[in-house]
């Protein structure tokens, strides 16, 4: 089986990341925004894994574990916040949650 070249992984990762950014910017539902963030995390993970494989260096894969851990923590906090907001309001739109404006 011919090896998939590194550039393909990178292109896929870039595509995932851009989709994540755009999703984060255009969607107003916090759950969708969280999923977009997950997409960006995983774009990064993919790059780590691809380079680890390409260079034969395990450090990249170890980094992926760390990123997954951090992403889990982030998701836990973000979901907690979203649940709290849901309890106070019926429909949730992040543009309405702007009490921290200057």
């Amino acid at each position: 089986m011919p090896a998939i070249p590194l550039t393909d992984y990178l292109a896929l990762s870039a595509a995932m990341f851009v989709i994540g950014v755009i999703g984060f910017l255009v969607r107003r539902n916090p759950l969708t925004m969280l999923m977009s963030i997950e997409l960006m995390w995983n774009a990064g993970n993919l790059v780590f894994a691809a380079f680890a494989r390409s260079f034969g260096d395990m450090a990249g894969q170890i980094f992926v574990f760390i990123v997954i851990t951090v992403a889990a923590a982030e998701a836990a906090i973000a979901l907690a916040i979203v649940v709290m907001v849901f309890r106070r309001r019926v429909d949730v739109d992040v543009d309405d949650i702007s009490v921290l404006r200057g």
Partner: protein
Amino acid sequence: MDAFVATWAPAILFLPLAGCLAISFVGPRLPRSASAVLGCASVFLAFVLTALVAAHVWHLAPYDQSIDVALGTWAHIGALNIGFGLWIDPLSLVWMLVITGVGFLIHLYSVGYMGHDKNYRTFFAHMNLFVFAMLLLVMSDNFVWLLVGWGGVGLASYLLIGFYFDRVTAVLAARKALIMNVIGDVGIMIAIFLMFQHVRDVSFAGVFARTGAFGTSALDWIGIWLLVGAVAKSAQLPLHTWLPDAMEGPTPVSALIHAATMVTAGVYLVARCHPIYDHAPLAAQSVAVVGAASALFAATIGCVQYDIKRVLAYSTMSQIGYMIMAVGMGAYTAGAFHFLTHAFFKALLFMAAGIVIHNLGGEQDIRKMGGLVKTMPFAFWTFAIGTVAIAGVPPFSGFFSKDAIIDKAAALGHPWLFAAAVAAAGLTAFYMFRLLFVAFFGAYRGDAAVHVERVATMEIPVAILAALAVVGGWLVLPGDDVFGNLLGGAFSDVLHAQSLAEFNWTLALGTLMIVAAGILSAYLLYVLAPQMRENAKARLHGLRELLLHAYYLDDVYHVLFEAPAYAIAGACARFFEPDAIAGLPRGLSAAAGSFGALSRAWETGYLRRYGLTIAIGAALALYFAFTTLHAGGAQAH
């Protein structure tokens, strides 16, 4: 260093301070009379110690009588080395004896005089503070600590003149005294700077040993700057206007500070700095001229004033003029002798006047007195003793000391100073007897009821001072100069002979004639022929107005200094202050505010806008990294 003096001299200095602190901090928890006891006892103990130290020092050989008790180093900054030590010699001992001795009598007098005052404790605390500062002034062994004492007595004087702080006039008088005294403080400070510039030393011993290193011109300048200090503190021309106003203070304060001790600090300063003035002819001459002019000037004003304490204030200025003139001529012993007798009879006069004022419920105008011979015989007799003493009638003390100064003026060849001194002697006799006649003779003219209250604590000190005013002059009798011998140790190195033993009978007789003329004219005008007085009043109206307003010097100073200062301050308050001073912080706060408003608009609270900002920022950072940093790095390879 002498062990006995080294042990007890610091105790003399710090006892009154301890008394002041005890009254201030422990006094509030003790009964009212405790502060009086503490104040009197601390000063009395200091007096006893001073007497013991004086007896000890005067038993030493004359050349051993200057004792420098070094207590430590105060500051050591590069070439400047300021020690803290006490200089005990006959000159400072004379002053210390008067400060603690007369000071104690006046403390005792205050127990009765201030008895009804609500700020009784404060009064004694301030009086003790004054005694401490004055002792520091005369005991210090360098110019810096002398200046500290000099400022300290100024502070105590300020506090005590303004003691009745609910009276506007008292507060204004206190402020005036402080400001004029600060002019003098600055003069002394400049003199200290000059000393340091020339010999890198500020101690008495160091400066006086090296007067040769200054050159006459520098010594003259130092002498003149010191004179500025002396003039301000001793109320001499032209900085005297605070003294008559200072009479707003309680009478014991006038007796202690503004008659017996503080105002003679200038005399002490010049006598202490005799190695400078002996080699600074111009400065010494200025001192003598200022003194003689002040003596005559104040005596003329004293002739027309109606406030009993103001008359005494002008007579103080006049008598200190004598002392300043004496020390300026180089007759230091004569000046110190007049200081001693003056402390006795002037404190006596003030305290006797205080009894009168006390009994008349605060009345000080002699036009509203009269006939007090019968109602207050004690006050009359003591006041009369003081009057004949100050007028210079033998054998009372003032005769000997004033005659010594007049003798010296003649002997040292100062015809003009001599003439001024003799004229002032005649005027002194005139205005003092005028005061006596108007206040005590004739019929009572006041509205207030005479309420005679005889208080032992007031009468005992007055009686002691009256006795001293009689016998104090006998320290110098013709051919027997006890006082000069006592002071010999301090003036062994001076230019002119100091002995007062030589008595010029012709001169004394001539002066006596003039004094008698003064007394007789006062008797004529104020007792025998009041009609003549009215005639003279009408004919000399212009002169009388001039003297009543003290030569309008207060008004001249008002126009020259006060009015411009107020104008400048007013202009600053109106124009400079709101725009320049307040404008700067106001502008800064406005700038910070608008910057805050600007950045606040950025904080929208829209999560997605933050995200966009981060994305754009990250994209720009990446672009920068790839194009600039990475490209540059590539070129370097």
